[in-house]
């Protein structure tokens, strides 16, 4: 025991539960891993390439922005990695590499750093990038391919995969396909009955087992569900947002499907398809852009689910969760303002409760 500096006054508490941001990010990444690997298997090398490019672009942009802003590098807290990862999962797996690169840059630079970095952004960075890409490059962003599992006949090898990613080799027409929701939307607009359309797309079952066209994060819904449950068990997220999203989507779907089974997808199809599971557990739950309180989170989840259903049913896009998340990101400050916890000794409105003298029983 010696130097005075040893005892420089630090503020209380002088103990810590041990949580840190890096640990949280690592847990989320672990939860994403099975579904991601499954996606790699289903879509082969081009998907791997796209993933690597997107994540690398996100990391590089993060490093570059942190340098520009002159703040210390916090690259290894894993938040930029996670953003890139989530974005990669929401892209068409055979999209050209520049889509991933541009997306990574947009997500970090415009989605996060311009607001002041981690914790400051209003909108979910990955969703900002996805929507920006979708609106700017609708063709590339809706070019889905049929699953071609690694090692199966016709699956591109590493070099071919690289050429597909770099755009020097066109995607063979035979491989092009449509995502389940996209297919259904097109067919319905052509006047085809829903049952037929679903059959042609491989039915609801394919939505669950995941070997079908779609983004990395759309396939493997069961694995994502597993990851989500892990996050719940670890206390990384709480149930209010996912349950809200599922309920907000499923309840209107149940009603609409009962009324008009020929034109409205069942709740199961809604839940299993598209990026709902990914969105509910991994995207809508983003700490920074979602409300804090339990009631606020439930409300927010319900809103996202409902809006997703509305966009899917009547909007111009087959999938709506990205738009729904962004809209409710914008509403988060409002929700936070109205959903506050009650302060001990005060009424909900903030006035001190009335003192009642008397028996303490």
């Amino acid at each position, binding site marked *: *025991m010696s130097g*005075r500096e*040893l*005892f*420089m*006054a*630090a*503020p*209380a*508490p*002088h*103990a*810590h*539960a*041990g*949580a*840190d*941001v890096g*640990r*949280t990010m690592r847990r989320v990444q672990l939860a994403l891993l099975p579904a991601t690997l499954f996606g790699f298997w289903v879509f082969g090398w081009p998907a791997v390439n796209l993933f690597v490019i997107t994540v690398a672009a996100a990391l590089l942009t993060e490093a570059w922005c942190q340098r520009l802003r002159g703040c210390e590098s*916090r690259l290894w*807290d894993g*938040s930029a990695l996670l953003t890139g990862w989530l974005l990669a999962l929401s892209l068409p797996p055979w999209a050209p590499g520049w889509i991933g690169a541009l997306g990574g840059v947009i997500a970090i630079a415009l989605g996060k750093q311009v607001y002041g*970095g*981690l*914790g*400051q952004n209003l909108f979910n960075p990955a969703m900002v990038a996805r929507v920006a890409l979708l609106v700017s490059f609708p063709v590339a962003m809706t070019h889905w391919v049929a699953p071609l599992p690694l090692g199966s006949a016709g699956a591109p090898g590493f070099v071919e995969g690289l050429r597909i990613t770099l755009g020097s080799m066109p995607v063979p027409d035979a491989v092009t396909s449509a995502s389940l929701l996209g297919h259904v939307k097109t067919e319905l607009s052509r006047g085809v009955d829903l049952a037929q359309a679903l059959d042609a797309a491989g039915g609801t079952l394919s939505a669950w087992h995941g070997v079908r066209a779609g983004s990395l994060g759309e396939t493997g819904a069961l694995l994502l569900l597993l990851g989500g449950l892990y996050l719940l068990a670890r206390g990384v997220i709480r149930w209010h947002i996912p349950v809200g999203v599922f309920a907000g989507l499923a309840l209107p779907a149940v009603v609409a499907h009962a009324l008009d089974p020929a034109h409205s997808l069942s709740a199961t199809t809604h839940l299993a398809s598209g990026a709902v599971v990914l969105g509910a557990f991994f995207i809508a739950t983003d*700490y*920074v852009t979602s409300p*804090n*309180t339990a009631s606020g989170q439930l409300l927010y989840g319900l809103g996202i689910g409902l809006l997703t259903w509305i966009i899917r049913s009547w909007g111009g896009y087959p999938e709506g969760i990205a738009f729904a998340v962004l809209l409710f990101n914008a509403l988060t400050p409002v929700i*936070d303002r109205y959903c*506050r*916890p*009650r*302060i*001990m*000794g*005060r009424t909900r409105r*903030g006035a*001190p*409760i*009335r*003192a*009642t*003298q*008397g*028996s*303490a*029983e």
Partner: protein
Amino acid sequence: MGILDRFLRAAHFSGGVHPDDHKRPAADAPLRVMPPPARVYVPLVQHIGSPARAVVAVGDLVKKGQRIGEPQGAVSAAIHAPTSGRVVAIGDIVAPHPSGLPVRGITIASDGRDEWCELEGCDDPFALDPAEIGRRVAQAGVVGLGGAAFPSAVKLSGGLGARVELLIINASECEPFLSCDDRLMRDRAAEAVDGIAIMLHATGAREARIGIEDNKPEAIAAMRVAVAGQSRIRVEVIPTRYPMGSEKHLILVLTGREVPAEGRPSDIGVVVHNVGTAMAVRNAVRFGRPLVSRLVTVNGACVRQPGNVEVPIGTLAGEVLAFCGGLRADHGGPARLLLGGPMTGMQVPTLEVPVIKGTGGILVLDAAEVGEGEGGPCIRCGDCMRACPVGLLPLEIAARVRAGEVEKAAGFGLVDCIACGCCAYVCPSRIPLVQFFHHAKGELAARARGTQRNETIRTLTRAKAERLERDERDKAEALARRTAASLAAATEAAAAVEKAAARTNEESGACA
């Protein structure tokens, strides 16, 4: 008590945390009594309220228990000599405070005899008038030993002006590492319960409930035996959760009732005292013994022989540590020296700080126990909000404080923050939330004072302006009169004197 009954009464608060309690093995080590050191350093303020005034002079011989500091004002406490000896200095000593700045205190060189002064005890405290008990407790300089060090007599005998129905004895000891209350209850349960009975008599409450967290089974057992036959005193086992020992939370858990914000427990007919205080009250009333020593938990990975020690007030922390075998250098060496528990205790800059009445622990923690780590920006994870036992939004308050908007921070309930530290304890970004809140509270207080001062200044300025104005007016009037007078005089000199003019002249002269 039926299960249903228990269930119905099991009120709880939301939030709170479950830190590692680190209570054992220190709590299981037998109590040790430390002999008076060669010198004791006794600060004149060891309590909430105004400092005491020294009533001895350098060179005076004092006996143990002799009053050396006189309380000043309604909320203050007397100070007594912790041992017999000679007063060698009255002046600055290092304050038991993070700043390490000096406070006024009395230094006594022990004569080694530890001789008590004459004490006025009482064989039957229950025959005493409650006011008389309050007086004796005040005489003995008893303050709350749970840490807040509020003068006990004020709370004991209706000083708060409200009728008390229920006396709650806080024996929860929710701070990790600390076990002095635990030890007290294990070793001196009968005396503690006697003290509680005296307090019950003094407060006029109908019953007393002793809240003990369920991580102290030995203390619970001992206290249960001690209260047997006391129909109005009950032991209540409560869950172990920090900050159970916060007055308002303990009341909620034991009664299911909330203390109004900005109010006091007495508003709902409750008063809370620490179990250690009950012991001090007993000593004061039965034996007339003032509060000159206390139980201190000495703990932390860096302490060689952790345990509980009865320490004379004014003993330096370093000497207490030496009594406990000194410090160990393994574990990477000491990382932090604390007075009090790790959640709300304060870090002090040196070992040369004295133990005072409110010092429940001396902890020397290693880096692992402190759990130091790298900080970062707020990621709005909301963990702090879920941990807050008061229902605040620490992240929102902190964001406002950081932006310099303390008024807005106040709008988020800053005044209701009990500074328990739960929020900062869980924050993954290690934001010093409690420090922010302290800072903002200080700022608000300063602004309030500032407003007050500005008011005063404005009033004074206005008064001065009015006075100046009045003076000016008077001067002008006087001048006018004088001018008139001299004119009149000139006229008089120049022309024929008229009687009327002369009269005017006389009048104005009289007036001027």
